[in-house]
């Protein structure tokens, strides 16, 4: 499950965003820098991979740290809305599937934190960014899952949108991120399929189940469209992301792909997508769709959605409550290590 493809600037911390000013380098240092930049550009232009120990522009590194960590945070926070229904899943099969899916999301977060750590940041630093409210995560997870049908719709639409975002990222220029995304994508199609299948079972079921599905679609559809981010004209980091081979396809193009793919799926389910302006445009070869409420989107991104405070507070609580557990493991490891070296000394 994933986030929008645009890069939302993190809040409050000016130092994270401004480029560091370095003292003027010597002539030979300047030359080395220029050569490194040329090598970097050549790799990017050839669609090659930049690896952790390669030279890279500071801004490239910072952008990647921000984007990858936002992505990771999104996966972790994303465990909460669906996790909400594990205890109440209406069949044992669905319960098991949902636990596996939520677990996958945790796993995706983990792969992504690992990828980000290759760029010089640490898990603790990234978590500190999230828990302090500075770092952003995908706004879609700030909405509540009110019924069991929401779980299916989240799988179908939110994961569906995520897949659209993630497949191009498998070709991203930064090696560890691309490899993490390949792993994620392999697992992701299970996520969308399980959601769709759960909905299929419901729309073939009772009247109450059908109404539950339609109601969930009504509440989630527009939020999912907004997931792809604002039109690229309004997206500050898109152009640079494209140049660096981090961002491959524009927000609008991805959104259009998503709409076109989803309309026939909705027809199979027999649900109505809540957009009177949604219709096939023969001339364009795509579906036209209505206007997205970007004010609502930004309000949620900036902290005023229905669940922002709860999501963040829950992650902070889990982290703080878990401190004694993490401390215990470290203390035990240290004791074991001391015991082992004491034993080697005795043996020697």
């Amino acid at each position, binding site marked *: 499950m994933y986030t929008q493809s645009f890069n939302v600037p993190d809040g409050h911390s000016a130092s994270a965003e401004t480029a560091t000013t370095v003292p003027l380098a010597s002539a030979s240092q300047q030359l080395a820098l220029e050569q490194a930049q040329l090598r970097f550009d050549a790799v990017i232009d050839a669609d090659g991979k930049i690896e952790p120990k390669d030279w890279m522009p500071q801004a490239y590194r910072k952008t990647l740290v921000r984007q990858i960590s936002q992505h990771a945070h999104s996966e972790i926070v994303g465990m909460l809305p669906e996790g909400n229904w594990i*205890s109440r899943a209406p069949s044992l099969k669905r319960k098991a599937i949902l636990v596996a899916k939520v677990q996958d999301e945790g796993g995706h977060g983990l792969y992504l934190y690992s990828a980000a750590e290759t760029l010089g940041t640490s898990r603790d630093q990234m978590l500190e960014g999230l828990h302090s409210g500075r770092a952003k995560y995908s706004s879609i997870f700030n909405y509540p899952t009110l019924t*069991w049908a929401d779980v299916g719709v989240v799988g179908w639409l939110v994961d569906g949108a995520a897949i659209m975002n993630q497949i191009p990222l498998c070709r991203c220029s930064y090696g560890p991120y691309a490899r993490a995304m390949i792993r994620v994508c392999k697992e992701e199609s299970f996520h969308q399929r399980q959601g769709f299948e759960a909905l299929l079972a419901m729309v073939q079921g009772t009247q109450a*189940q059908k109404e539950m599905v339609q109601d969930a679609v009504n509440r989630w559809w527009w939020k999912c469209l907004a997931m792809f981010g604002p039109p690229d004209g309004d997206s500050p980091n898109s152009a640079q992301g494209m140049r660096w081979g981090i961002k491959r396809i524009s927000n609008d193009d991805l959104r259009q792909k998503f709409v076109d793919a989803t309309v026939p799926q909705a027809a199979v389910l027999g649900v109505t997508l809540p957009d009177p302006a949604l219709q096939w445009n023969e001339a364009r070869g795509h579906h036209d769709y209505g206007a997205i409420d970007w004010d609502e989107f930004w309000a949620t991104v900036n902290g005023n959605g229905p669940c922002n405070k709860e999501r963040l507070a829950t992650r902070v609580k889990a982290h703080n409550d878990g401190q*004694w557990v*993490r401390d215990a493991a470290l*203390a035990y490891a240290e004791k074991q290590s001391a015991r082992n070296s004491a034993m080697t000394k005795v043996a020697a």
Partner: protein
Amino acid sequence: MKTETSLALSDYVLHLADNALVLGQRNAEWCGHGPILEEDLALANNALDLIGQARLLYQYAAMLQGEGASEDALAYLRDASQYRNYTLLELPHSTALAPTARCERDYAVTIVRNFLYSALMVLVWEQLQVSRDEQLAAIGAKSLKEARYHLRHARDWLLRFGDGTAESHARAQAALDFLLPYTQEFWTATEVESAALASEIALDLASARPQWDMLVHDAVLEATLVLSPMHGFVPTGKLAVHSEHLGFLLAEMQSLARQHPGAVW
């Protein structure tokens, strides 16, 4: 076709299934709230193993009962007065508190409970995998591998807590003091288990006790904890008389399914 033997067998299978489901339900509560991301995934695997075992066992019990019984009917439509799990497994992740009191989840309670239960189940599945009942034997063989991993996981954490920091040691000791008396229920004889034993389906649990005692004693010692004396109230969960906690657990678990009788998901 329901015979007396198959009914007795299905009661025994339900006892095993209810254990797995109730503990799986409890462990899954940590999903998204674990003390570290890696451990969140580990515990989710544990829950998935248990839910998987529950499913196999419920499916078998349903087959034995016939008459339209199903895994979900058994899991979602039986009340607390029909559930046969150990009381130990239905407790929330905290030391002694009534269900209507607000409690904080304590990972030490989770780990100690998992340790005490998986230490038992390794022995139970070892025996059941050679049961005369082929179905149970197959389920036993599969579940044994899972139980061994659960035991290793829980035991390792028990050591980290007992021999970790002062706080983790205190929490582990408190959890052990609180949970150990609940294990008295493992050894009380019941008609269901006697019947299963008589038909050579199941083991004589009492014969596993020395091994369990040793497993627990060794781990507790290595964890620098103290094995609290085991006395006090002997729970009766496997006799379908539970603590106040199971009612709440089942209410949450079953509410949606019961709201839509007959619906397929």
